[in-house]
């Protein structure tokens, strides 16, 4: 039984192509991750559990994943909306808005963090109006969500946009002719078509947000147990020359992320199957 159970193809170089991609993946992705696990395994279970089950670490992990999930959910909604507007409407300055969507990609994250902090600090441009209402954004978990939303937006827009662009107008017209109102058309025809891309985009936004560091540390205030994210814990452990502790937290993050991505991917396979993508 062959592991590379391939069908005949006219394109040459399967073995070579497969070999190179596997080697590359191993070198760039798997090797560093493996080193991390090796480093962690050296510390032994008691020390590992001691580090990981520390109250501060657990709080930071929870904060990181929950904030990333909230930010991804917000991006799913508004990213979809933005993509829709960019694809469907002719409006003044559309190209400009379109270019602006990529800004969070291009901007150094620390710049974004500083900018957001200045805006949302209690004496900032936006923060000064929110403060009297009792809403504190900067130096709270809310601020972290704001930063992560900012970082994740392009992922959703850029994955959903091409799918919306290719969505045939005729589908909507067909639905209308069959008596569907606008809401039914969106819910039953457009949304299911866009869903796989939306899941992909949201996943990317979520993945990016869990690992985000630069933009968050400025706006978070980094108060232990309240607004301290897991990547910061790792950095601070490294600062204290606690390399094993840092890798231990990192391994836990890695495992959780991997499990979540696997879950989302299966969700996507399922959704793609329902879309009749199977042959």
């Amino acid at each position: 039984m062959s592991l590379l159970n391939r069908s005949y193809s006219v394109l040459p170089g399967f073995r070579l192509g497969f070999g190179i991609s596997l080697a590359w993946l191993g070198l760039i992705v798997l090797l560093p991750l493996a080193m991390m696990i090796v480093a962690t395994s050296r510390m032994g279970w008691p020390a590992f559990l001691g580090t990981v089950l520390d109250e501060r670490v657990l709080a930071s992990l929870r904060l990181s994943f929950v904030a990333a999930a909230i930010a991804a959910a917000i991006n799913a909604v508004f990213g979809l909306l933005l993509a829709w507007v960019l694809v469907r409407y002719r409006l003044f300055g559309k190209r400009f808005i379109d270019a602006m969507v990529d800004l969070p990609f291009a901007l150094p994250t620390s710049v974004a963090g500083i900018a957001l902090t200045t805006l949302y600090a209690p004496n900032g441009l936006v923060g000064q109006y929110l403060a009297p209402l009792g809403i504190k954004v900067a130096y709270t978990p809310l601020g972290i969500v704001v930063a992560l939303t900012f970082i994740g937006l392009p992922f959703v827009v850029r994955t959903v946009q091409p799918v919306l662009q290719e969505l045939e107008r005729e589908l909507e017209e067909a639905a209308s002719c069959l008596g569907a109102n606008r809401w039914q058309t969106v819910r039953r025809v457009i949304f299911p078509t866009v869903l796989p891309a939306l899941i992909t985009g949201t996943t990317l936004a979520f993945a990016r947000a869990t690992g985000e560091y630069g933009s968050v540390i400025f706006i978070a205030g980094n108060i232990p147990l309240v607004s301290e994210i897991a990547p910061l814990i790792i950095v601070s452990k490294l600062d204290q020359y606690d390399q094993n502790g840092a890798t231990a937290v990192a391994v836990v993050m890695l495992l959780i992320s991997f499990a979540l991505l696997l879950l989302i991917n299966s969700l996507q396979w399922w959704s793609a199957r329902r879309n009749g993508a199977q042959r």
Partner: protein
Amino acid sequence: MSIEIQNIRKQFGDFVALDDVNLTVNDGELLALLGPSGCGKTTLLRIIAGLERPDGGQVLFGGEDATHRHVAERKVGFVFQHYALFRHMTVFDNVAFGLTVKPRRTRPSPEAIRERVMELLRLVQLEWLADAYPPQLSGGQRQRIALARSLAVEPRVLLLDEPFGALDARVRKDLRRWLRELHDEIHLTSVFVTHDQEEALEVSDRVVVMDHGHIEQVGRPDEIYENPASPFVTQFLGDVNLFHGRVERGLFRVGDFAHPLAGHDDSDQALAYVRPHDLDVSMSAAQALAQGRIEHIHAVGPVVRLELRQDDGSVIDVALSKERYRELGLTPGDTAFVRPKKLSVFNGDASDYVI
């Protein structure tokens, strides 16, 4: 339900898609809108459906003004050229869509929906595909499902936009015969758009020939084919030979040749159109229209096709029956005369229309 179209105008920017179009579609008939691309036929169909808003004029359904009715309220079945099936739904759900989006008060029970959908799938002979997804179907199957879907809501009229345009020739032929039979069975007022004259002439009860946003001619397929109203219609309906000449005291004259022509006023510039199968080859100049040297003989099949080159270099196409061809005993290089059995004469100096 009859459809009346009154003074419909539609413009896209500077382009006039429809210019004051009037048309009545009788109850229960199958009408073809025929014309080259850009003639406005699809726009007209979309205006009837309510997918496009006219700049002026009215659309009446059964005498009742529907111009400002929303698509969803018009109760029209619309079949798109590229099927527009919902890919993420099974065939069953596609067909059931129109029933399941009805408001709760008027929505049939799930059992009733199931029954109706299966009945429609039987009508299009595809009930075994109920659980398949559209990407798994062939083009012909998809179009039949699209048709079943549009019929589910019991539309008052059925509108088809180039329904066979995306299919290959064989499937197309089967499907149009099938559509004809289906129409004879359900007698739903239907309008379909096509640029294929053969399709229009074969399937429909009446044909509307359109060009540049105007209706050129309306009539039964045989009427239109036998008595085309304009040079455009003549050319659009099939291969045709054009002779430039003049009409003089009951004779159509081309150069030295003269052909008797009844019921046409004298004219200095006239055009005679003759279809290849309406031309006969003769060895005498009597009643002929032209003379040429036989350049090519294509004798495969029941019809023999000849190409005659005239002195001025232009080519005349002639289609003869095999018997007639044997009788004449023609060989390439022979010089022969062509005599029309039937010709359509129009005044004017209009040079060849470009279609």
